[in-house]
């Protein structure tokens, strides 16, 4: 297990290095940030001073070297726009995004798995067809348009829920969260639903497919022959069996949810990482873009690692040290 983890960590470091090179080179090709930061009436001396101050006068390779050296020390440059360390900026936005992503995932699991079970246990019926069609509709709905419709219905027409911002946050168990206040909770609701819908559809399909493939298997027949109640078969045997692929997907989807949060955050003006990256792209805030990508890459690597380990724990067949089951 240890060897496995170490090997995976080394691989991850390599990937991270490759990404940093690609990203740095790619971002370097975007327009000149000096033009955007300086006022129009700035003279040549001021321009040169700004270029020197930002370190843009040195060759690309040197810039990359400096960037890499600082990156290992946790310094990914200072935001051109906010003038604070970009890594700090991103981490200050991270909790809002994580909260949103977690809520969205929770909704999709809590609603999607039961619906998927329901449909999978009754294949070919009207209910099944309705749920399946609903799930296709769910992932056909462009996320941003669905968000607009949520705003239109619940904020503009009905006036029930606020449509932008995060609202007041409070501290709960030492974590700053929107759940602590009613205002925060109402602000969280629409963005979380918006973000969850796509994954909800995925959960339904995954669970349904899993149930349909599991039901004809021998161990289910055996459990039935043993006289185990149908409820217990579904909840204990089937669910446990299909949970492995579902957990893998949930893990992998956490990253996708965080990426897709860029869209949700833009629509609902949610002050998270996603909105930050869109703003930074528009303002060509290079250090923030690079730092965002490094943080996200790192996050993906960690998520994949955790999923692999969880996988090994849940499914005895993939356990690295072969124990007798």
């Amino acid at each position: 297990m240890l060897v496995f983890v170490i090997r995976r960590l080394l691989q991850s470091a390599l990937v991270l290095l490759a990404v940093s090179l690609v990203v740095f080179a790619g971002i370097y090709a975007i327009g000149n940030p000096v033009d955007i930061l300086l006022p129009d009436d700035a003279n040549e001396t001021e321009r040169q001073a700004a270029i020197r101050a930002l370190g843009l006068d040195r060759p690309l390779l040197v810039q990359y070297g400096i960037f890499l050296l600082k990156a290992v020390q946790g310094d990914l440059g200072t935001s051109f726009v906010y003038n604070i360390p970009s890594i700090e900026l991103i981490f200050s936005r991270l909790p809002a995004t994580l909260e949103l992503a977690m809520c969205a995932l929770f909704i999709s699991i809590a609603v999607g798995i039961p619906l998927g079970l329901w449909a999978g246990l009754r294949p070919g019926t009207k209910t099944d067809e309705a749920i399946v069609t609903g799930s296709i509709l769910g992932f056909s709905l462009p996320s941003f348009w669905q968000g607009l419709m949520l705003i239109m219905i619940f904020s503009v027409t009905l006036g029930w829920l606020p449509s932008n911002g995060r609202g007041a946050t409070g501290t709960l168990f030492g974590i700053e969260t929107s759940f602590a206040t009613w205002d925060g909770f109402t602000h969280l609701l629409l963005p979380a639903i918006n973000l969850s819908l796509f994954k909800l559809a995925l959960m339904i399909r995954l669970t349904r497919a899993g149930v349909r493939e599991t039901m004809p298997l021998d161990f289910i027949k055996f459990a039935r022959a043993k006289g185990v109640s149908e409820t217990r078969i579904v909840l204990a045997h089937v669910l446990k069996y299909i949970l492995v692929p579902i957990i893998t997907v949930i893990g992998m989807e956490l990253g996708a949810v965080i990426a897709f949060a860029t869209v949700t955050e833009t629509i609902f003006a949610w002050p998270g990482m996603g909105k930050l990256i869109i703003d930074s792209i528009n303002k060509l805030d290079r250090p923030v873009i690079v730092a965002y990508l490094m943080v996200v890459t790192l996050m993906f690597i960690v998520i994949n690692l955790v999923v692999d380990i969880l996988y090994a724990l849940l499914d005895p067949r993939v356990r690295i040290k072969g124990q007798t089951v």
Partner: protein
Amino acid sequence: MNSEISPTAPTASSSTVDESRLRMLWREYAERRGAVVALIVCVVLLAAAILAPIIAPQNPYDLSVIDIFDSRLPPGSVNPAGFTYWLGTDGQGRDMLSAMIYGLRLSLFVGVLSGLLAISAGVTVGLIAAYAGGAVDALLMRVVDFMLGFPAILVALILLAVLGQGVDKVIFALVMVQWAYFARAVRGTAMIERNKEYVEAAISLGLSRPRIVFGHILPNCMPPIIVIGTMQIAHAISTEATLSFLGLGLPITEPSLGLLIANGFSFLLSGLYWISVFPGLLLLVTIFSINIVGDRLRDVLNPRLQK
């Protein structure tokens, strides 16, 4: 059911075999009426997109026919000249229905073209990996894993941030995020196919490598390509719309459905719903019907689910 082309199958009769197989597939496909309706919708939308200059009531690009005084009219309004805006007008006084038909034309163009390019790129990589094996295969699949490790929307977003706006750039970004899916699927199928007898027969006949790969293995890898291709086109249309909505996709001069919706966003809060609701509905119907067709194709073409 599995009508595998046997190594000795004479080419003369293969066309009739294909025809009856196609008819059989169609009969199975048509078992779900919803899927047939979805297919009809797809065809109608495609026709509308191609015939846009003929069927659209107004040319939304022609500034001489657009009157700014007609802006933000609700659906069903009639202007002084007697022209009816069935779906209302947008902020610049364009007829929404016409703008939507032209938007659909652009969205479908981007989606289908990027899908086809991604298929060619992905299939080529997948076949090379499967047929070459060894280090080439390992390297190519590492790249594929790397690409699939990141969500498509994120990669496209970054690419467009670097490249800037434009139809060609959006198509390039969409191809970049899609090809890996095809590469992986094709490699998987091709790995199984290349060990079958008909390939052995082709090799012993002394056929050239490209001919074996593209003429013999590729046709047998088609089912998954068709299914993934359909789904990916829907996905590409959706991704393009999302990127355009975020202001990173198509330029404002070429309004796709996503851009029309984005334009309507600012009016939405003041209750002018039609500017973003109708293009959104059209986008939804487009993606939904393509996905339904793809879903049905998957069931029909998947040998594991066949009775």
